[in-house]
């Protein structure tokens, strides 16, 4: 009797492991299956066409690919000095004590605020500010657009990138740092010549992981990017990202090809973020061993 129960228990564990694996496989499979019709009608040109006009049955994903690339890389660029500074600040200057605790609590608090609220705040506070800036610069004052979306995204990824960076910086062995200090190095020289080289791959992984975040982020971007399906011509132009076009148009997709085109974009989004995440995780895992 006990023997049977043991077997049953082991079997149910194996079953739940298989279920999770099958779940992921089934996710990929359904995305591919439902994305097929659009590839059948437009071929791989789907990825390169610049025209997205569902009414005429034209589906080209290029505007959204470019929109996603622009917003996420700009966001990365904006956030990099800040997240690096916080990572060094918390990893080296204040790695314990009250100030560290304050910063840790604030960043975890802010990482917990739902993204729709960032979007809401962006819509009511950031958009008017950007509009003022655009009037000063003499470009069309939409307020919403790629630039605004990148700003809100960079605010959102700072806590995330900083926490990964702090972690890898604190992994640097103190013997190495002490050796450099013993040779008379200043603190900055230790950071520059010991910590950075040692943590380089980890910092790179942190950047990759936050890039994955930025690419997949939906709500905050959807609310401030302006929902425009034209190929983006300027950094201040309203546009759409892969995630935001799905959020905006999925419930409106009337024809099967239209739905399939949106699902194909979801598949693409899934593949890109998966590759980025797996590489990032792989690097961090290698580093912490």
């Amino acid at each position, binding site marked *: 009797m006990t023997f049977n129960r043991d077997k049953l228990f082991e079997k149910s564990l*194996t079953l*739940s492991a298989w279920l999770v*694996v099958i779940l*992921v496989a089934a996710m990929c499979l359904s995305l591919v299956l439902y994305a097929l019709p659009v590839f059948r009608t437009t071929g791989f040109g789907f990825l390169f066409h610049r025209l997205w006009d569902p009414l005429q049955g034209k589906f080209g994903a290029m505007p959204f690919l470019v929109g996603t690339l622009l917003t996420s890389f700009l966001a990365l660029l904006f956030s990099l000095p800040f997240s690096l500074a916080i990572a060094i600040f918390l990893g080296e200057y204040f790695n314990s004590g009250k100030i560290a605790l304050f910063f840790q609590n604030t960043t975890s608090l*802010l990482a917990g605020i739902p993204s729709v609220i960032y979007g809401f705040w962006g819509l009511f506070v950031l958009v008017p500010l950007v509009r003022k800036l655009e009037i000063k610069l003499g470009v069309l004052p939409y307020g919403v657009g790629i630039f605004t979306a990148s700003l809100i995204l960079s605010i959102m990824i700072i806590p995330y990138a900083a926490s990964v960076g702090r972690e890898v910086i604190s992994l640097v062995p103190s013997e190495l740092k002490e050796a450099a200090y013993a040779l008379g190095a200043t603190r900055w020289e230790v950071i520059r010549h010991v910590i950075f080289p040692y943590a380089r791959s980890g910092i790179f992984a942190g950047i990759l992981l936050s890039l994955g975040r930025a690419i997949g982020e939906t709500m905050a971007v959807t609310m401030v990017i302006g929902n425009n399906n034209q190929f983006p011509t300027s950094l201040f132009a309203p546009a759409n990202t892969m995630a935001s076009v799905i959020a905006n148009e999925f419930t409106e997709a009337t024809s099967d090809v239209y739905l399939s085109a949106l699902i194909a974009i979801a598949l693409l*989004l899934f593949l890109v973020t998966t590759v980025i995440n797996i590489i990032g995780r792989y690097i961090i895992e290698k580093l912490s061993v």
Partner: protein
Amino acid sequence: MIENYRKRKLVNTLMKGLVFFFTILSLVPLLFILFYLIKQGIGAINWEFLTHLPKPVGESGGGVFNAIVGTIILIVLSTLMAVPLGIGAGIYLAEVKAGKLAYLLRLGTDILQGTPSIVLGVIAYLWVVKPMKSFSALAGSVALAIMMLPMIVCSTEETLKLIPYSLKEAALALGVPYYRTILKVILPAGFSGILTGILLGIARIAGETAPLLFTAFGSPYLNLNPLKPISALPLVVFNYASSPYPDWWRQAWGASFVLTVMVLVFNLAAKIGTRKWEIKF
């Protein structure tokens, strides 16, 4: 020599200043958001807001009671779906460690962890909404459950790995069968860690909007039926924020505040839970 020394010292101070400057500057937008949320949110909250249903467009007043109930239903349903499967898979990882299935499972949870939430919404639409031909709370919870799953698997595995092997050996040496050793000795010892993982998972899904847009969909009525469209706080924030009515904007701030407090409570509970029932051996 002295010249060089001065220069190095100057660079050191300069870089220190730069790091401090950027760190403090980065707090500005973050605190600005928090300040705005609290200021606008508290002003919108009163008894009516928390306990009444929304009023039709044009009438002021009304509340988000249905959305609060909807969020709770979504959380309960998705937790019920994700927790048993997640704990099972987590125990498998902690017990088996190597092998083909363990490798695939680890890869799968890694993939799920990085999947954008909007993609999970698409999946739940294809799996639940399309066959049943109706938006539903069930579809929303499927999306949220998939999102929560990897966190539970990971926290279960990490926790069980920390439990000393001697505990298991002692139980087995006493003749306790394997399944009872896991269920009655190992799992209770790791209870706090697993609970923390579940609470963090809930905190993560409670504020999610993207997977609900075309699954739970939202509804202006109080709905308790999991097969019908249901409202949720994040959906209310999104819909009201993009509306043209100032009264709805006010309510959206209120809903944002309630939602943030909810997420914080779960995060805090997780933190306190870890500290209180920390595994000490």
